[in-house]
């Protein structure tokens, strides 16, 4: 055996291409062996990114999305002097002044979720009943943290005239603030999570929340508005003339005409009974809404950067140039400041330092998938090839040596195998037995041994007539001994060649089956990556998704072919002398 290995090595060493092939194959084997170390990400992990983004709308067009904080920003407000404030997770406060953003040092660890400001007072509210009070003119570092007597998350706050504010939050929490008494919890009479609040004056406003909760607020009392919708409501705004807009999940937009027109008061829940369900061009979640100037123009935004504008009574999609979640907004003089974003899946990212081969449509790392894919390719390729060679060689040996009935029968069997369309038959086998690694290997192995068998048989036929076989027979050696001890070593070069050829075929076959969606489930394979790319429809834009796995298949198979060439010379020395 070792002499054979040595002569194989000699044949490979003599051929530059074969040497290259061996190098490539060893490289791939190394990659496969070291896959857990080499893959920078779990190939199955949906990679997320977190950042705080702000977008400015100047009344005519949207500016570039700008990353202004390292944590998601939940709420924003625009100030009269063209400045702005945004607050977010982990107490982040970002300040816009003179068109420059500053990520200010946090004064609290609690996540800040709601924010509002009037001409001088700014209040942010958030997790664990946190409220942060500040003066518009002062730096955020000087803002003061006040704790409310609740653990609930406060979701929104509205400030009216620097002397009053109302905050709402989870589990029906409502708290009112005024300059003299500070914060005071109110009984809302509901359990639903409250998500939005808008004051129209110090003692008057509207509160909205999940499961269609709408409350009218008047001087410390809350009055439920019945039967508005069953949808979660997340944002509310009231125009100067009293028109109310509510937005929420599943593209919910509701409008209520000014209550003054119907002779009621905004503070009476019963007066709010004329909701108009507006047609939404989007079916996803709206997080917040703002009137822009009068009651006829408004803007709503939400999940995945969706934005819709109200113009002439109709909502139309607005392109913000951003496709991550927008969570909060503030407006002044027709300008809008929008901020986001939740941890978002980094989908279809082009190659970068983080993701060398980019990411899939679900934000999975293609480089890691490709690395893991080498295991499947080699495992299936190697085992199937081994199986093919084992079956093929033995059938070839037996059929070639026992020429009579045994050999004839075996060769008829080989004939049948020859008539089977390979790809189709392997596919049927896999479909019938449910795809798994084992079945894929068996399907490939069971259908491709036929050529090996036929070739080995042909060689054995001629070897059997050679004098050394006759000599062995005369010496009384048994058939099996002649076959496996005397003849087999002479067909070994051909066996090795067939092993290489079968491996190249098996790797391609595995990739093909996986590409058709019949690969082993839950296992990354190069063909499977391409299958997913095609299935998602995103491969038409994501070139980085289709190039790496294909190249890997090509390199692996060509490496085996290069080696096979050297082995071919070994099994058929005539080729060597001629070239």
């Amino acid at each position, binding site marked *: 055996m070792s002499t054979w290995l040595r002569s194989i090595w000699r044949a490979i060493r003599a051929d530059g291409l074969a040497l290259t092939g061996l190098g490539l194959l060893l490289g791939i084997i190394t990659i496969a062996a070291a896959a857990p170390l080499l893959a920078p990400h779990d190939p199955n992990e949906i990679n997320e990114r977190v950042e705080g983004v702000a977008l400015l709308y100047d009344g005519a067009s949207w500016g570039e999305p700008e990353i202004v904080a390292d944590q998601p920003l939940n709420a924003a407000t625009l100030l009269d002097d063209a400045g702005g404030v945004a607050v977010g997770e982990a107490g982040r406060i970002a300040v816009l002044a003179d068109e420059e953003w500053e990520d200010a040092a946090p004064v609290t660890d609690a996540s800040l979720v709601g924010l509002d400001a009037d001409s001088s007072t700014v209040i942010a509210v958030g997790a664990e009943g946190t409220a942060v009070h500040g003066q518009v003119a002062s730096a955020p570092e000087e803002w003061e943290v006040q704790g409310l007597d609740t653990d609930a998350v406060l979701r929104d706050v509205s400030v009216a005239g620097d002397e009053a504010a109302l905050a709402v939050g989870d589990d029906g929490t409502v708290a009112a603030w005024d300059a003299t008494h500070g914060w005071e919890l109110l009984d809302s009479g509901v359990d639903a999570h409250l998500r939005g609040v808008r004051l129209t004056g110090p003692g008057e406003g509207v509160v909205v929340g999940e499961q269609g909760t709408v409350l009218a607020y008047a001087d410390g009392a809350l009055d439920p508005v019945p039967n508005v919708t069953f949808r979660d409501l997340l944002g509310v705004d009231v125009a100067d003339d009293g028109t109310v807009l509510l937005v929420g999940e599943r593209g919910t937009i509701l409008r209520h005409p000014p209550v003054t027109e119907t002779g009621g008061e905004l503070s009476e829940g019963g007066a709010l009974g004329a909701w108009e369900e507006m047609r939404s061009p989007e*079916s*996803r979640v709206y997080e917040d809404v703002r009137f822009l100037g009068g009651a006829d123009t408004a803007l709503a935004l939400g999940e*995945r950067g969706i934005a819709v504008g109200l113009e002439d009574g109709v909502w139309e999609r607005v392109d913000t140039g951003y496709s991550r979640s927008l969570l909060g907004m503030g407006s002044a003089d027709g300008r809008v400041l929008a901020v986001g974003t939740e941890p978002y899946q980094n989908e279809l990212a082009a190659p970068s330092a983080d993701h060398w081969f980019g990411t899939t449509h679900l934000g999975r790392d293609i480089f890691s998938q490709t690395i893991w894919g080498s295991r499947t390719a080699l495992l299936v390729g190697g085992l199937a090839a081994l199986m093919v060679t084992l079956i093929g060689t033995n059938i070839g040996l037996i059929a070639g040596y026992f020429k009579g009935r045994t050999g004839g029968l075996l060769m008829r069997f080989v004939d049948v195998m020859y008539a089977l369309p390979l790809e189709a038959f392997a596919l049927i086998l896999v479909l019938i037995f449910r795809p798994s690694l084992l079945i894929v*290997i068996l399907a490939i192995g069971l259908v491709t041994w036929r050529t090996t068998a036929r070739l080995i048989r042909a060689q054995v036929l001629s070897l059997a007539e050679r004098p050394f076989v006759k000599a062995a027979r005369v010496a009384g050696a048994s058939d099996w001994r002649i076959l496996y001890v005397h003849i087999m070593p002479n067909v070994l070069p051909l066996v090795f060649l067939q092993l290489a050829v079968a491996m190249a075929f098996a790797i391609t076959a595995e990739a093909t089956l996986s590409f058709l969606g019949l690969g082993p489930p839950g296992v990354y394979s190069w063909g499977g990556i391409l299958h997913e790319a095609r299935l*998602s429809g995103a491969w038409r834009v994501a070139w980085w998704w289709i190039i790496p796995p294909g190249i890997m298949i090509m390199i692996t198979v060509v490496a085996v072919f290069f080696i096979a060439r050297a082995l071919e010379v070994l099994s058929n020395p005539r080729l060597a002398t001629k070239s």
Partner: protein
Amino acid sequence: MRTRLLGLLALLAALMMIAVACAPAEQEDEPADADEAVEETDEEEDDEDVADEDVEVETFAEIDLLTTTEGYDPIRYEAAFMIEETWGELGVDVNVEPTEFSTLIETFYDQQDFDAVVAGWSGRVDRLDPQHFLGTLHGGQTDLGGNNPGQFVDADYDELFELQRAEPDLEQRVEYVQDMQAIAGEEVPVNVLFYRDEVVAYNNENFEDFVEMAGEALYNEWTPYEVTPVGDETDLTIGTPEEPDTINPLDSTTVWGWKFMRMYYDKLIRLSPDAEPEAWAAESWDAPDDTTWEITLRDDMTFHDGEPVTVDDVKFTYDYYLEQEFGYFMPFIEMIEETEVVDDETVRFHLDSPFGPFPNVTLAQIPILPEHIWADIDEPQDLAPEDIPTVGSGPMEFESYDIGEYQSLVVFDDHFTAEDFDIERMELIIYADAEGVFTGLQTQEIDMTAWRLEPGQIPQAEDEDFLTVVNAPDFGYYHLTFNLDVEPFDDPEVRRALSHAIDKDQIVDVLLDGRGEPGTSVIAPSNPTWHNPDTATFEFDMDQARQILSDAGYYD
């Protein structure tokens, strides 16, 4: 026999098993990577702190979770793996088995040989009435092959089911239906995972004023009427990856056959875009008593071959369907005891039991067939494709159908609605897959898609100025059905705990790009008449899931 075939392979298998076991290429078994993404959110960390990874739910055997192959539906495939992960955190061993669709259906419905299945029901206009979806949890449908393979049997539920079926008063029926959803929500024999929006697109440079319907998106009965050409093009071309199984009205059992045929056959009633019954071939209808329905037929209708449409054709059609026992329609017509021609314009249906949704479900489904053509056909199912009659009285006339390639219809000028059309023809190009449809859309070969776009195609469609993308909510749903005959799913506490451990928001946000809605009830929110918004929601909450399991004694 299948096992015997497998047995033959066992010898070779043994060798391979060893090899496979030695080289685990399956990534699920890999521990999370050491250098985790830096950006781990607080919530996730919280979860992991609480997660006591050592706790195993000893009493559970491994659960096989059947789902579709990735190729058939990547959403259900990925969703199953997401469930495997969160259930795994509870200590429940899950083995996801992606299965070829026909095998899946056989295992699930015919053999009922499963632990849990991720499957779906498509929304079809006749399923807007709650009868069908509620029926999937009815105790009478638990037989092999029935629609309730999870074996949910609840006496209260079944009683309400019978009550609602017979209830002619809408308000009272709504109440029954909502009560049923409350029971189903509390008991969770089926966890409704999500409702997926139908996202389709049309070419706004050729046509405008498309009609959107829940569950049908744009390829509905009304779009051909309402679309107006923007340019000179008056042929509305639709791209579809699906085609009719047959255009034989006594053989077609798929929605794709009927979506095509309903344009060239008339029905007594048509459902409006809001699914309200509208007078069609019937001028009016009325129920003199619980078990009688009476319709008045229009007098100005003719079939495409010039013969008038008469009350005899109506009676013939209903009798014919009953006599042929056409399975696809039997649920809609089996309660009809007799169809009686009263006079030239009146037909009376006598039912054997009260059936409230008769106009919406029955009269709006059954096409009127020409008696003079079908009366002589005794074995309609044996018709060769080229012999299938295509004469109807519908607003459009059949023109051609080339299997695998092309279907077309032209407006029928003598129809009472002919004036309403701005188009002249409607054609469907049949593509091999969603890929092909999208290419057709991009190259402006087609004006609209009949079937939804893949998530990856949607942003590309949105980037094209000439395409308008439409999100239509669906009232069909994707669900995880527990087999209540299998431990531990017989325990409602386990079902509730596991329901808390399914992150539906993530499924919708990540897999559907937010274009859909986490599920609650088998009657979807986009079917607001019947939906019960107070159905138990089972928010994603791992702590609560552990708590429930622990309270029920599953953790030591």
